[in-house]
């Protein structure tokens, strides 16, 4: 499988390029995803193998985890033909994807979706800098953007880590190199210095 990451940039939706044959269908999904799985079963989207294989438990082992396998690139495209249909299609794809995840992937995915900055702390931070009160929507927007920011840094840092032939957990040097790269791509605000074009 190609290397890719879950960036989740579009929140609920997102076009997901799925592998032609979903692998690892032998584990028991969690109760909360049971409904999703049933939905997929009914529509016959997945080809299941004959009988479940007993879980070896090795895939959940961090030591043997291949970094590339659990990440998929989620790309967003602007679509015109019937937004409702597109949303439903994307939701269907997400369900298919989720139902073919390993337990470890499910764990990580759940944390990925649920993790968020505490609103009160973020509000305090913004108001301290702004010197005035800000609306709740602003706090929500800023928290959302900050989370995307963290995702971009971590993704880049994981790239750096892999490139340097090292393994997670990430170290500060990976983070700093990631920031350096993102900054040169213009994805990090803050440099008040004008770029010197001709010297």
């Amino acid at each position, binding site marked *: 499988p190609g290397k890719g990451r879950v960036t989740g940039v*579009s929140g609920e939706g997102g076009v997901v390029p799925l592998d032609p044959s979903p692998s690892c269908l032998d584990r028991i999904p969690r109760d909360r995803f049971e409904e999703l799985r049933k939905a997929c079963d009914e529509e016959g989207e997945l080809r299941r193998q004959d009988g479940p294989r007993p879980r070896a438990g090795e895939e959940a082992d961090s030591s043997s985890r291949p*970094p590339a396998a659990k990440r998929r690139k989620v790309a967003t495209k602007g679509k015109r033909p019937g937004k409702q249909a597109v949303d439903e299609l994307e939701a269907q794809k997400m369900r298919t994807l989720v139902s073919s995840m390993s337990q470890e992937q499910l764990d990580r995915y759940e944390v990925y979706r649920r993790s968020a900055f505490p609103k009160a702390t973020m509000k305090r*931070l*913004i108001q301290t*800098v702004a010197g005035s009160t800000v609306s709740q929507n602003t706090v929500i927007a800023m928290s959302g953007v900050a989370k995307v920011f963290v995702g971009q*840094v*971590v993704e880049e*840092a994981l790239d750096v880590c892999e490139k340097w032939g090292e393994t997670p957990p990430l170290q500060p040097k990976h983070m700093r190199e990631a*920031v350096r790269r993102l900054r040169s791509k213009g994805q990090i605000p803050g440099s008040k210095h004008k770029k010197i074009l001709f010297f």
Partner: protein
Amino acid sequence: MADEEDPTFEEENEEIGGGAEGGQGKRKRLFSKELRCMVYGFGDDQNPYTESVDVLEDLVIEFVTEMTHKAMSIGRQGRVQVEDIIFLTRKDPGKFARVKDLFTMNEELKRARKAFDEANYDYGS
């Protein structure tokens, strides 16, 4: 400088709006718990290094600070609004998409709530 010998003394908001650098200040950690979860969700190890999380926290605070300052200088001056954030992230597809999504969802919710309220009003409740 901040006194670290007394851990029970809360140093809230100290130097939060501080300089543009990574800021290895002695400020209290604001997002440690949440960031640890977040980096795991994004692909790091389940037990990330504290130092790495600290670096990230400084980055986030710097990011939010920068965004806030910029937002105050555009649109309605001195205020930070969602429209400002949308404008500021326009060149970054990842961030822009997320903000647009949140904003659109919010508008939908407002519309739905309004329709709901009007329906209730019609029934005289």
